C-alpha cells in the first residue's frame, strides 16, 4: 500500500519535473482523469474480456476435471496423456490464438474463448491429476490396512484429496484466464475488449486513456483472483491452516 502510493507519487513528480510529453508517458493524475471520463467504455471492455475469461475458466475447469479423472481411472491413458499435457503446457499457448482467429469470422469471440478455456484446462488438469495421485503415505497405509478395494480408495481417498488441489488450480488459473483473454485480443478480431482498447489507444498516442484501460485490466485480474481465493477458502477450509503453518 505504502509502496503503491510512493510509486505513484514518484511517477507524477518525475513526469511533471522532466516535462515528459503526454504521448510518451502520462502522469497518474491524467490517467485518473481519463479513467473517469471513459469509465463506461472501460467497464464495457471489462465485461467483454471478463466474460471471455469467465467462460474459459468454467469450461476449462470442467474439462480439466473430466480429463484428469479419466486419465487417473484408466492407467495406460494416463501414462500417455500426462507427459504430453505437461509438454504442451510448456508451449506459450497464447500464440495459438493467431491460428484460431483465422478459423473463425473476424467478429467472433470464439477463438478467445477457446484460448481461455485451454489456459484454465491445463492448470486445472495438472493440479487435479496431482491431487488424484499424491496421497500421504499414512493415508495409503491406512487404506491398505482396512483392506480397501481400488474403488473404495478412489472414492474415499483419492477423489476428496484432489478437491483441495482443484481449488488451488482454480485460484492459479483465474488471473491467468484474464491475461489470456486480454492478450488474445492483440491478435485481431473485435475491437471491444480491454486488450484491443489498450493497443488501440496506445497506437493513437492516447497514453492516458490506454493506461486507464490497463488499470481496468488489473482490477479485473484482481477480482478474478479474489473470487477464486474466497471460493478456495470456503470450499476446502483445511487448506487455510496448512498454508498459514
Amino acid at each position: 500500500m505504502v509502496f503503491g502510493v510512493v510509486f505513484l507519487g514518484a511517477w507524477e513528480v518525475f513526469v511533471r519535473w522532466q516535462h515528459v510529453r503526454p504521448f510518451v508517458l502520462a502522469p497518474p493524475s491524467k490517467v485518473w482523469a481519463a479513467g473517469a471520463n471513459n469509465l463506461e467504455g472501460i467497464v464495457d471492455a471489462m465485461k467483454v474480456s471478463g466474460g471471455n475469461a469467465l467462460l474459459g475458466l468454467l469450461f476449462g475447469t470442467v474439462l480439466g476435471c473430466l480429463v484428469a479423472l479419466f486419465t487417473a481411472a484408466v492407467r495406460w491413458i494416463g501414462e500417455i496423456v500426462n507427459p504430453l499435457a505437461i509438454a504442451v503446457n510448456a508451449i506459450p499457448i497464447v500464440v495459438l490464438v493467431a491460428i484460431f482467429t483465422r478459423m473463425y469470422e473476424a467478429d467472433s469471440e470464439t477463438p478467445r474463448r477457446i484460448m481461455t478455456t485451454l489456459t484454465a484446462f491445463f492448470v486445472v488438469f495438472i493440479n487435479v491429476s496431482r491431487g488424484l495421485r499424491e496421497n500421504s503415505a499414512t493415508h495409503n497405509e491406512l487404506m491398505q490396512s482396512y483392506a480397501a478395494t481400488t474403488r473404495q480408495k478412489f472414492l474415499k481417498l483419492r477423489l476428496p484429496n484432489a478437491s483441495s488441489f482443484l481449488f488451488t488450480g482454480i485460484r492459479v488459473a483465474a488471473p491467468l484466464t484474464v491475461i489470456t483473454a486480454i492478450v488474445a485480443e492483440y491478435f485481431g478480431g473485435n475491437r471491444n475488449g480491454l486488450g484491443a482498447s489498450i493497443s488501440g489507444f496506445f497506437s493513437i498516442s492516447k497514453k492516458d486513456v490506454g493506461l486507464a484501460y490497463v488499470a481496468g485490466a488489473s482490477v479485473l485480474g484482481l477480482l478474478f483472483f479474489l473470487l477464486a481465493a474466497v471460493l478456495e477458502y470456503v470450499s476446502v477450509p483445511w487448506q487455510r491452516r496448512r498454508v498459514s503453518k
Partner: protein
Amino acid sequence: MTLAVEVIDVHKVFNAGHSQRVEALAAVDVMVGEGEFVSLIGPSGCGKSTLLRLVADLLEPTAGRIAVNGKTPRQARLDQDYGMAFQQAGLFDWRTVAKNIELPLELKGWDKAKRRDRALEMLELVKLPDRADAMPWQLSGGQQQRIAIARALASHPSLLLMDEPFGALDEMTREHMQAELLRICAATKTTVIFVTHSIPEAVYLSDRVVVMSAGPGRITSIVSVGLDRSRDEGTREAKQFYDKITEVREALRGNPVGAGRDDR
C-alpha cells in the same frame, strides 16, 4: 496364555538382487500373548517399523512365518483383526471427527446408524465425546492422535499396532497420552505392539520391551518390565521404573543385563 502374534524366524530383504540390497530383518522371533503390551525399541534402521508392517501385512516377509490370531496376516487384515495408528494422526481433512472414526466400518459395509453409535462410543472412550462434528483441523495434535486411536479401535480389533504414535507430540501431552492409552487398553483388553524411540515410554507402557539392533535388524534382548498394571504418575518416579530404564538402555548399548533372549 494364547498367542495373539507369532513371528517365527522372519527375514526381510529390500531390493533383493539389486546393488542397494538392504537386509532389514534377520532371523527375528517374537511371540506376543493375548492382552500383552509389547514395545519394539532400537536405533533407526533396526527394522522395528518393518516388523510392525510385516505383522500388519503391509509388507511381506522374505522368509519365515507370521501368524496373527492363528491366521495369516493377510486373512487377519481382511478380517480387520487389528487397528493401526501412525506418527501422523493421518485423519482425513474432509471428514468430521465422527466420520473419520467411522471410515474403517464404512469400508466394511456397516449401516449408518450402527457406525454412528460406534463412533460415539469410541469418542467416549478417548474422552472427546463433544467433538463428534468437529473437523480434524480444529483439534490439537494430541486430540487428533486420540481420534486416530479411536479410529484404530473402531472395529473392536483384538490387536492394536502403533508406529511411534506419540512421536510428534510435546512431552506433557505425550505422558498424558501414554496414561490414556494404558487406560484404554485396560478397558478394551487389547493386545498392543508399540514401536517407539523413547526408552521411558517403552518401559512405562509395556509388559515386555523388545530391544533391537541394526544392520541387519535383529532382536538383541527382551526385557520383562513387570511393573504393576495399574501404573500411574507415581510409577514414573518409582525405583523399579528407573531400574528397568537402565536395563533397556544397557541392552540398547549392546551389553545386556538380566533377562536376555526371551524364548517363551
